[in-house]
Structures are given as structure tokens and as C-alpha cells.
């Protein structure tokens, strides 16, 4: 298994290095999502009321007198105009950055209680790598926490909708006839609805204020319910052609049941397509969640998702004077590009493999 992964990565790197780096990037992001509360300097809901819209703190090695410091440090920031939210740098205060700094207690991986964070500053200082939002919450920390929602919604959503599509599509394609007709008409009805409004309508069936976890599950369910239709059509047409292969007839002659043939012969032969399609479908789910959260129907404050963090950037005035609130938008774009590049790379990989 590990050996396979290794050779797969090598092949990916040789054939399509952007895909390889996307894969590594996404792996790092998932790792980040897992350890978000440890890596982030602050919890997602701590409000530094004296620092609304604080710009990203610059990290320095050389101080105002030109001396070099091996340990980077940050200066103190001071709010000078509470209306305009403008800050001055207080050069008299220096805060070095340390690894493994004591901060707010959290549960690492959900069960190890600890107060340590990966990095931070001690004492009065603040470390806002990507600035703060209007309530003075650290955007970098919130971005890390938001990774959890945005990256899992894609994977879980794709998993659910692809499972439905595989079952439904292969049943329709393998049996054909009346089963096929019924299933495909249902799919067409589902596809006839504009996806975004269907999403809104489905979301409207549930109350707005619900626990975050429940909202998350509902969002995933809604997105999956919309997403399986188009894929199941493709799976169906693949099943239609796969079932004509003599190995399906041979399996019948050997006494294999329909279920056996679907599970053993039809579905595995759709995999090379399905893996690529799944990778390319993940961005759709991330965007779907972001769209719902952006208009306030998704994950609720104070819990961050990239979508609801972006809602702060809706106001042009805020955006022009505090451009760092756009950080989650950049994160979304980066992840989507990464998934698309990875999907392209996988397509190359499987194409070559099938040619052999």
C-alpha cells in the first residue's frame, strides 16, 4: 500500500509536477485542518476588542536601529483612530516570536488537553499574521479553523454523492429497460432545477439558527443530493458499455449474480473515471458551502468557514481600507486550483496506465 503510494507519487511528479505539488499542498492543508487548534496562535472566537481591523503584523529580523536579531520579533500596534481604524507601530515595544507558547487551553485532536500553541508571542504582544476582522479576531487563526469546514465539505460531499451516483448509475446501466427509464427520468427532473436555487430552497426547510455541526451536516446533505444526478448519468452510460464486455457474460456463465457482476465488474471499471471526476467535483462543493455561508445560510458565527469569513468582504469600503479580509477568498481559489490541477494530473496518470 505504502509502496503503491510511493510509486504513484513518483509517477505523478514525473508526468505532471503541478499536480504533484497540488497534492502535497492539499495534504498539508488537511494536516492543518486536523491540528488547527494547535497551529493557530489564538482560538477562533477570541475577540481583541482594542484591535478591530488591525493590519497584518509584520515580522522583523532587523530592528529600528539596524541590529539583526536571530529570533524574529513583532512590534506593538496602537489604534490611533477608532473611526478610521488606523494603527501606528509602537517601536518601543518588541515581542519576540517563540515556538510552543502557552496560550488558551484547547483539546489537541479532540482529547489531549494542552495550553501550548505551535508559535506565538508572549506577554502583551499580538501576532496577527493576516490581520483581524471587525471584532478583532485573528483572521489567520480563523482561516485555519475554517479549513476544517471547507475541506471536509468537499470530501464528504463527494463521497456521499458519488456513492449514490455509483449505485444508481450502475443499476440503471446494467439492468437497462424499465429500471433505466425510471431512474433516468428522476435524474432529469432533478437536473432540470437550477442548482443554486434548489440549494436555497432545501436550506430554507431548516431553521436558520442551528448548532454548527448540524448545519454542516445539512449543507453536506443538500450539496450531495444535488450533485449525484449528473454523475449518475455518466456512470450509467459507462455501465451500459461495460456490460457488453465478454467478461460480464463470462461471469454470468460462471454463475455470478447481478449484484456480484455490478460490484466486481461494472463499478471497478468506472473507477479510473470516477477518481478524476471526484477530484474535479470537490471545488463545486467548496464553492457551494462558501456560497451558502456567504449569504448567512451556512455555518453560523462565531464558528468560521471560509464562506462566512468572506461575507465581511462584501462591503466595498471595508475591502478597500482593509484588504486582508479577502484572505479566505484567496484560500478558496488556491484550494480549487489545487484540486483542478490534481484532477488533471490524475487523468494523465490513468490515461497512460490504460494505454500500456
Amino acid at each position: 500500500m505504502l509502496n503503491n503510494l510511493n510509486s504513484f507519487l513518483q509517477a505523478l511528479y514525473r508526468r505532471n509536477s503541478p499536480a504533484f505539488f497540488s497534492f502535497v499542498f492539499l495534504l498539508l492543508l488537511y494536516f492543518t485542518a486536523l491540528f488547527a487548534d494547535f497551529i493557530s496562535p489564538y482560538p477562533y472566537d477570541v475577540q481583541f476588542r482594542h484591535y478591530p481591523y488591525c493590519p497584518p503584523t509584520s515580522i522583523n529580523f532587523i530592528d529600528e536601529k539596524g541590529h539583526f536579531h536571530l529570533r524574529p520579533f513583532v512590534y506593538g500596534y496602537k489604534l490611533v483612530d477608532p473611526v478610521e481604524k488606523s494603527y501606528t507601530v509602537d517601536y518601543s515595544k518588541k515581542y519576540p516570536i517563540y515556538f510552543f507558547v502557552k496560550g488558551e487551553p484547547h483539546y489537541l485532536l479532540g482529547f489531549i488537553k494542552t495550553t501550548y500553541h505551535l508559535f506565538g508571542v508572549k506577554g502583551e504582544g499580538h501576532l496577527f499574521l493576516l490581520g483581524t476582522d471587525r471584532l478583532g479576531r485573528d483572521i489567520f487563526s480563523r482561516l485555519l479553523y475554517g479549513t476544517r469546514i471547507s475541506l471536509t465539505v468537499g470530501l464528504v460531499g463527494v463521497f456521499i454523492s458519488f456513492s449514490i451516483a455509483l449505485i444508481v448509475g450502475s443499476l440503471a446501466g446494467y439492468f437497462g429497460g424499465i429500471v433505466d427509464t425510471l431512474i433516468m427520468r428522476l435524474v432529469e427532473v432533478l437536473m432540470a432545477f437550477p442548482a443554486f436555487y434548489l440549494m436555497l430552497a432545501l436550506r430554507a426547510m431548516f431553521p436558520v439558527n442551528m448548532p454548527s455541526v448540524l448545519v454542516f451536516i445539512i449543507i453536506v446533505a443538500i450539496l450531495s443530493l444535488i450533485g449525484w444526478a449528473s454523475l449518475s448519468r455518466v456512470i450509467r452510460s459507462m455501465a451500459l458499455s461495460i456490460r457488453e464486455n465478454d467478461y460480464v457474460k463470462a461471469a454470468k456463465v460462471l454463475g455470478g449474480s447481478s449484484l456480484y457482476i455490478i460490484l466486481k465488474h461494472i463499478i471497478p471499471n468506472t473507477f479510473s473515471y470516477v477518481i478524476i471526476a471526484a477530484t474535479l467535483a470537490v471545488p463545486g462543493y467548496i464553492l457551494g458551502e462558501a456560497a451558502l455561508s456567504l449569504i448567512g445560510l451556512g455555518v453560523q458565527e462565531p464558528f468560521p468557514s471560509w464562506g462566512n469569513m468572506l461575507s465581511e468582504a462584501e462591503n466595498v469600503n471595508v475591502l478597500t481600507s482593509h484588504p486582508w479580509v479577502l484572505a479566505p477568498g484567496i484560500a478558496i481559489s488556491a484550494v480549487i486550483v489545487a484540486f483542478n490541477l490534481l484532477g488533471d494530473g490524475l487523468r494523465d496518470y490513468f490515461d497512460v496506465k490504460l494505454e500500456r
Partner: protein
Amino acid sequence: MREPLIEVREVKKLYPLRRDFLGRVKEWLSALNGVSLSVYPGECLGVIGESGCGKSTLGKIILDLERPEEGKVLFRGKELRKLKGRDYKEYRKSVQAVFQNPQSSLNPRMRAWELVVEGLKINYALSKGELLSRAEELLKLVNLPVEVLNKYPHQLSGGQKQRIAIARALALKPEVIVADEPTSALDVSVQAQIVNLFLELQEKFNLSYLFISHSLPVVEAISDRVIVMYKGYVVEEGKNEEVFTEFAHPYTKLLISSVPGSSVSFKETREQEIKKAQGCPFYGRCPYRKRECLSYDMKPFKLSDTHKVACLLVAS
């Protein structure tokens, strides 16, 4: 007379050709027009005919992959359609298949050993170790080295793939193997090897074959009895020598004369469209055609106990 293992009685098979917008069939293609035959234990029955004559449909019907519109198939004297539960399973195990193109008859995602023991896996609960050792035995039977066990089909040659397909059919210890053009996708040199393998296995396990092919030399080399099909009819049936040397039907003559280097010469008349869907299907191409042929019901005439020909020429 021995009991036939498989008996096909007056089987007719229709395929829809055209449908109207409501999905009702407007035109049918009749692939089989009342075909009867028997396969006896330990014999090889060759089926020859040009492409589209219904040979493969016949194979599919015997394998229960298609249902005939009329007529029946008997397995050990019992009607196939009425076999239930254990009896049907017994039939499934006893009647196996080898298909034309090993490229499409082997799942590209399965390794050689998985392919070979697929039937055992479906029918019996065996451990992986048992399956592997059975796979090894089966590969030995078809003269494949043990090294191929873990290979995927795309790593094997055409002949090796066809041997895998044969081993898979043998796994369930069948009595009959329906071989649908098993050599057509192979090189000539490999064809001979596969034919020899079929003969070897027949001797070893007392197998019966229904050997479908359009290649006359292959059929002549392997068959005990031969039937010649044309447009869904059996036009001639007899022992190997009877069909290949004492042939009586003009179509058989045409087939044999078309083999390169054949001493038989046969001049086909220019094909004439026949409007009426009655009478002899070969009428349009037959140089000996007569007016009566158009009302001939294709009932065969017996030349000997084993030799039957469906042609008015032999009647007179």
C-alpha cells in the same frame, strides 16, 4: 443411442430491428429460424457459417444469455427454462464458455489468478490460499507458467489470455464448453496451439464442445460432427467427413470452395434480391435454384443416419 447432453429443439430467435416512436417494434431480424441440434457426451460439434448466420446467437441461447422466442433447450433431457435452484446451478457449472476476444473476455482490473478462479469464488467458499493453489493447477492444465499468476491481462499475449479464459472455463469441471470463435482473434501459429489444447483437454476430461467458428480448417481439425448454418437455418449436418468431403448443399460447397487452395470450385450467381421471405434463404445466390425452392420449408432430407441436408437438390 446415447443421451444427448444438450439438445436444442426448433429454436427461433428474433431481434428488434426498427421501432416506431412509441417503442413498438416495426421490423424484426430473425437470427435463428427453427434450429435443432444435439451435443453428445465427449464429442465436438462444430458450427460453421458466415458472419451473421446466427452461430453466436445459438451459443448465447445454449449458455442462457439470451432467451429464444420459440423452441427450447434441454440440458440432460430437462428443459432449461424450467430448471430451478440446485438444478440450474448444476447446469451453470456444467456448461461453460470461451469467447472470441480474450481482450474483452478478461476483466482488465483482475490478476490472472483471480480471473482463473472466478467461478470457484462465486460457487464455493474457499480461502485465498486454496484459491491460489487451484489457480496454479489450472494454469498448469493450460500450459501456462506459474509466473503469470500475478499478472494483469494487459501484460499477457493474446494466446496466453485465451489460455486463461480456457482455464477459467475448466475451473468448474464442466461437461460442455461452448467455444464461440475461440481462435478468430489469434495469430495462425497460436491458433494451432489453442486447437491442440482443446483436443488435449477433451481427451483428459472427456469434454464436449460446441465449437463455433467461421474458419473451416479449424473446425475440420477439431470436430467430430459439423453443422453448417446459413441465415438462421441449419442447411447441412453430418459427420466431419460427410460435411467436408461428401457435402451436398450448395452453400457448404461455396464455403469449402472459398478456402484458399481448395480443389472445389463453385460459381455463385450474382445475388438476386428475393422479395418473399419464404423458401430457401440461399435462393438468391444459388446457381441450381429452381422455382420450387421458393416454397421449400427447409425440412432436411436424410442422406444417411447422421448426414442431413436441407436442399431440394438432394431430394430429386
